[in-house]
Structure formats: structure tokens, C-alpha cells
């Protein structure tokens, strides 16, 4: 009776706490709305989208080549893996295969990216749980890897290093040596992190039996990567659907047993060692050979072969042969300097005073009427008419350069054309399974680009991991699923 009266007077309800999007432990701009009863979590609702940039939609308006830097900005913690995921998918769509050496290099940098990602994960996870020294020790090694990235491609985070059909440039010798030294030292560094947290009773109390998820449930939730493997499911795309050079190396897939935060932590720590091992094997086996596929349809042509026309000492002038010109007006439209004039169906003319010698007319003309005059810059029209020869009679190197220039312009302005159809290609990025789904309508741009981002799916698992635990465990759960909101929100 009294209790009923009391219930009437004191209405109790859960405290509603907004955790994020500005919060030190939500790894970016994740917003969680927590309903807490005292300190116990009753309900968790994750809200995403604060970092939405429309990468999928942007991909539809960019060519397959151009869209590559977008993938850097998804999971910016391991940009290299995202790049590789993208190029592997596009290569499959194009039906080409990268050369052996490029595949090896890509696998090496992919594993470097995995190490650097796991280091950042460990750093932030430990910092969230309060061990701040691990954070800085991890960053010490991550710096090393980022410096190595800078050595090969000039950027530390947003690397844009792999290309469709290979990699941008070959790796220098110092890179291999420095990386080898890194792999020598890295296991001892892992031991340092483990000394601080692995057996520490506070760490164990904070992680063991926190956020337990069974194997079946984890699969149903769509978890992938180390987050799934912590529950004991040995699913790893590198092992089951090997891409790049993963079929040529020997490695284990570490799995957990219970599926709690500690198991997932152990999985990633073991993966660090495995990745280190993979890098060592690959460096030892790195074969000589080209780093770009020799298929002019899908790669930029070699620049040194264009030199006969593009080198500044050549002093090129362009001239329209009156006889060959059909007056179609293509060159007139292509000319960015508006230097070409002429009536329709009559021979066009280049105004040499306005011409910037950019080769746009040369590559657009279908009738071989635009020709190249070496050393013709600044000469009068009459003189040029004297010197000009038909494109067929030009020297061999200039002819080749002209063909390559045509390819260069076409590649950049229209993009390499993909065959019609759709496909889904998944790769194993450090966070899980990153899938690219393309619908191609046969043009140079995807009709639809869809990304399966592991972070997004893992963010959806948060309520399952948190409910029933305490506020502090939410932080541990966010850390253990290893999400990056750039990838989650895209």
C-alpha cells in the first residue's frame, strides 16, 4: 500500500545521456544516446552520419581512376588498405591483373597499414580504459610506419599509392631496408605494450567478460574481421578468398574463444605478430619485374615516350593541314584557348598568336589533319605551311608520342571504360570485410558504387555489446569494435 503511494509520488525514470558526437572516447563523431539506471546501461542507441560526405554518390561522378583518393578518406587510419580494396575491386571489374611485383608490394603496404591501424586501435583502446602510456608507445611505432609510407608515396595518411593495375611507383631500396629493420624490432615493442596491459589485473577486470558475443550471434550481426574472430570464427578473406599475394605467404588466423573484449584484444595483438611475419616473408620473396600492368586501356601511358612532343626544348607548333581538314569543328570545341577559327565544312585555322600549344586539337582530330611542327613556335603561318608534313610522314618517335598523348587525354577526360555488369569484391581491411559493389553501365564512371563498411556494421552491434553493463564498459565496447567514423558515415 505504502509502496504504491510512494510510486505515485516518486516517479523514477532512466537518465538520458548523450554521449557524443563530441566526446573524448567515441572515436570521432559517433553519437550514443544512453539510457542509464544509476550507472547501468538500459538502452543504447547509436546515431551515425555526422561525418557523411556522400562518398558513394561522389564515386558516381568520378572516373574509376579519380575515385581512388575518396577511399583514403573513408578509413583514414588505414588508408592504404582501403586503397587496395578499391583497386582490387576495380581490377576485377576491368578483368585485368596486376603484375607479380606490384601484388607483393601492395600486400606489404597493406600489412603495414594493418599494423599501423592496430597500433592506433590499441593506443586509443588503452587510453579509453585509462592506460595512457601505451598510447604514446604505440604512436612511436606508428610514426615509423607512416614515415615509411611517406618514403614511397609522399604522404603519410592519405596515401593514394596503389593504382588500378599496379602501384604508383616502385619501392626504393632504403624502404625495404628500413622496413626489414622495423620487422626486426617490432616484436620486442609488442612485448612492451603487453608488459603494461596484457596481464595487468586492472586491464583484465576491465576487459574479461565485458561485451560477450557468441559466434552465432556475431555472424548474424554481420561482424567481420578481428571483431568476429574474437568470438572464435576463423573467417578471414585473406585466407579464404586470397587476393594480391596472400596465397603466397604462410600465416595463421588467430581466433578467440569467449568473444569478450579481452579475446578481441588478444586476437588483434596476435594479428600484429602475424602481419609482421607476413611482411618479412614478402620482403624476402619480393620478385623483380614491372609494377604496372602493361595495358594502355587501363593505365596512364609512360610519360618519357611523350617527350618528343611535350619536352619544352622541342618548341612544338601545331598546324592544320588544309587538305585533310573536313571542317567538323571538333578541334574548335576542344581548343581551350579559342585559337581555332573556321567555318563549318571548311578548313579550320590555328591562330598562332593565341595558341598555347596544348595538344588538345592534336588529340581530338579524327582525320589526321592536325600535325606537329618541331621548332615551329613563333613562326608565321606561311613558314609553318612550308614545314608541315602529313602526320603519317612524321618521324617514328613523334608518331608514337602522338598516339600516347591521345591515350593520355582520353584516359583523363573520359576515364578507362569498364565492361557492363555488376560485381562485389571484398577485401580484408584491418577493421573487417570491406566490400565494394559496382554497377557498371559500360561508361568510364560507375553507375552505382556501394561500400560495405565494417565500421558501420560494427557500430550497429554496440547496443548488443553494452546493454546490462556499466557506463565505463560502453567505452571499452566502443574501443573493442574498432570503428572509424569516416568509414562508418562515408
Amino acid at each position, binding site marked *: 500500500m505504502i509502496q504504491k503511494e510512494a510510486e505515485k509520488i516518486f516517479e523514477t525514470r532512466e537518465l538520458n545521456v548523450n554521449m557524443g558526437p563530441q566526446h573524448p572516447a567515441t572515436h570521432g563523431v559517433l553519437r550514443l544516446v544512453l539510457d542509464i539506471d544509476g550507472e547501468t546501461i538500459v538502452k543504447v542507441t547509436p546515431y551515425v552520419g555526422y561525418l557523411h560526405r556522400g562518398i558513394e554518390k561522389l564515386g558516381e561522378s568520378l572516373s574509376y581512376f579519380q575515385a581512388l583518393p575518396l577511399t583514403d578518406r573513408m578509413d583514414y587510419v588505414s588508408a592504404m588498405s582501403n586503397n587496395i580494396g578499391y583497386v582490387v575491386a576495380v581490377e576485377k571489374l576491368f578483368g585485368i591483373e596486376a603484375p607479380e611485383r606490384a601484388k607483393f608490394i601492395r600486400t606489404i603496404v597493406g600489412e603495414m597499414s594493418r599494423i599501423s591501424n592496430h597500433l592506433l586501435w590499441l593506443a586509443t583502446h588503452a587510453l579509453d580504459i585509462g592506460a595512457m602510456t601505451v598510447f604514446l608507445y604505440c604512436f612511436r611505432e606508428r610514426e615509423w610506419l607512416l614515415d615509411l609510407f611517406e618514403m614511397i608515396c609522399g604522404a603519410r595518411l592519405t596515401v593514394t599509392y596503389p593504382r588500378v593495375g599496379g602501384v604508383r611507383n616502385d619501392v626504393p631500396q632504403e624502404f625495404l631496408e628500413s622496413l626489414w629493420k622495423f620487422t626486426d624490432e617490432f616484436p620486442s615493442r609488442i612485448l612492451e605494450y603487453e608488459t603494461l596491459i596484457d596481464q595487468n589485473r586492472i586491464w583484465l577486470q576491465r576487459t574479461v567478460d565485458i561485451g560477450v558475443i557468441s559466434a552465432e550471434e556475431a555472424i548474424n550481426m554481420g561482424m567481420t574481421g578481428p571483431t568476429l574472430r574474437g568470438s572464435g570464427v576463423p573467417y578471414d578473406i585473406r585466407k579464404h578468398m586470397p587476393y594480391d599475394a596472400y596465397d603466397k605467404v604462410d600465416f595463421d588466423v588467430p581466433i578467440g574463444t569467449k568473444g569478450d573484449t579481452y579475446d578481441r584484444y588478444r586476437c588483434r595483438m596476435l594479428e600484429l605478430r602475424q602481419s609482421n611475419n607476413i611482411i618479412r616473408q614478402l620482403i624476402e620473396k619480393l620478385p623483380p619485374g614491372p609494377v604496372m600492368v602493361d595495358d594502355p586501356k587501363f593505365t596512364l601511358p609512360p610519360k618519357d615516350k611523350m617527350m618528343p612532343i611535350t619536352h619544352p626544348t622541342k618548341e612544338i607548333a601545331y598546324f592544320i593541314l588544309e587538305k585533310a581538314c573536313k571542317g567538323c569543328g571538333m578541334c574548335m570545341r576542344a581548343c581551350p584557348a579559342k585559337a581555332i577559327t573556321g567555318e563549318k565544312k571548311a578548313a579550320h585555322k590555328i591562330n598562332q598568336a593565341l595558341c598555347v600549344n596544348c595538344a588538345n586539337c592534336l588529340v581530338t582530330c579524327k582525320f589526321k589533319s592536325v600535325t606537329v611542327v618541331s621548332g615551329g613556335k613563333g613562326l608565321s603561318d606561311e613558314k609553318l605551311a612550308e614545314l608541315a608534313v602529313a602526320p603519317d610522314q612524321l618521324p617514328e618517335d613523334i608518331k608514337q608520342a602522338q598516339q600516347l*598523348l591521345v591515350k593520355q587525354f582520353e584516359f583523363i577526360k573520359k576515364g578507362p571504360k569498364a565492361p557492363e555488369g555488376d560485381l562485389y569484391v571484398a577485401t580484408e581491411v584491418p577493421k573487417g570485410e570491406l566490400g565494394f559493389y559496382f554497377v557498371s553501365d559500360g561508361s568510364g564512371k560507375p553507375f552505382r558504387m556501394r561500400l560495405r563498411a565494417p565500421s558501420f556494421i560494427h557500430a550497429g552491434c554496440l547496443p548488443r555489446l553494452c546493454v546490462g553493463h556499466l557506463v565505463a564498459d560502453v567505452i571499452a565496447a566502443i574501443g573493442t569494435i574498432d570503428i572509424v567514423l569516416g568509414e562508418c558515415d562515408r
Partner: protein
Amino acid sequence: MEHSVTVREITKQIIKRFTFIEILQGMALTLRKMFSRAVTIQYPKERRHIAPGFRGQHALAKNQAGRAKCVGCGLCAAICPSQCIHITRAKGQVDKYEVDILRCIYCGFCVEACPYGAVVLTENYEYSDYKKENIYMKKDKLLSNWDKYMPGKKGEEYFDKFWRPLSEDFGTPPGQSVFKGKKE
């Protein structure tokens, strides 16, 4: 036999529990690290080594005669994923070549797209300013960047190494880097 093993295990556990051994190990590590060399770089005084080919602020290359190599074909503007390059031409030369640095994502595609080797990314990464106009790169600023950051041989070397792909990427060049065994 088995019995003694479990007893040993249990004693081990008890010792671990009551001696705080793992915490002491951790504390020993942090104490040891206190006397090791710090990895900090005192930024404005010291600077980290910038690898050649760093993708920093843009510059327009000059030829031997000291004129801009750029002819204004517009390929860089066409490939730019963030569309931050604006070019206009007048009287047979490039009138305006502007890079909106605030939009640029430093992917380096403009360098790859340029058949003339006219645009480069320099090692300059310190160009913050209070005014937007100062960050918006005009043609003369880009040309002076070339003299400033790519003097002499450095510019040529840049094109040798980072203006890709070259024909050697499609073959096996001599002196390609390979694993040379553990250095003893």
C-alpha cells in the same frame, strides 16, 4: 605428476595475485623508459626529415629558359577529383593558373596527369595564413614556389622519381630494389 602440475599452477596464481608482479613489471618498464631518449621533435626548432617526393604545396615548373613549362592543356583540371584547379588562357599563353589550396586533397593526380611535367608538389607544408587570399595560389606564387622549393637539380630529380608512370614501370629496370639479406 598431474597433481604436482596443478599445485604448481595454483601456487603460481597465488604468487601472481599477492605479489602484484605484473604491475611491478609495468612500473619497471615505465621507470626504465623515463631514462631513455625521448622521441619528441621540437618542431619549429627541429624539423623531421621530409622524404623526397612529399606531396605538399604546389609549384609550376620552369624550363631551362626560366619560363613556365605549363601550356594550359587543362588535363590537371580535368583529373582533379576535387576540381580545385582553374586555368584560363590568353594571347598564346596561360593567363591564370589558380589552385584553391583549401579544396585540394593532395592526391598528386595533377602531377600524374600532366604530360608536360609542368606541375609538381613541393615539400612545403607550412603555409597557414590568416587570410584566405594568401592561401589561394595564383600563377606567380606557384612559379616562385618552384624557385624556392625545387632549385637546380632537385626539380629534375623530382621528375625522374615521382613523375609516373614512366616506361620503366612497365618493365624491369636495372637496379630494382630487392631484399639483400639480413645486414649483419
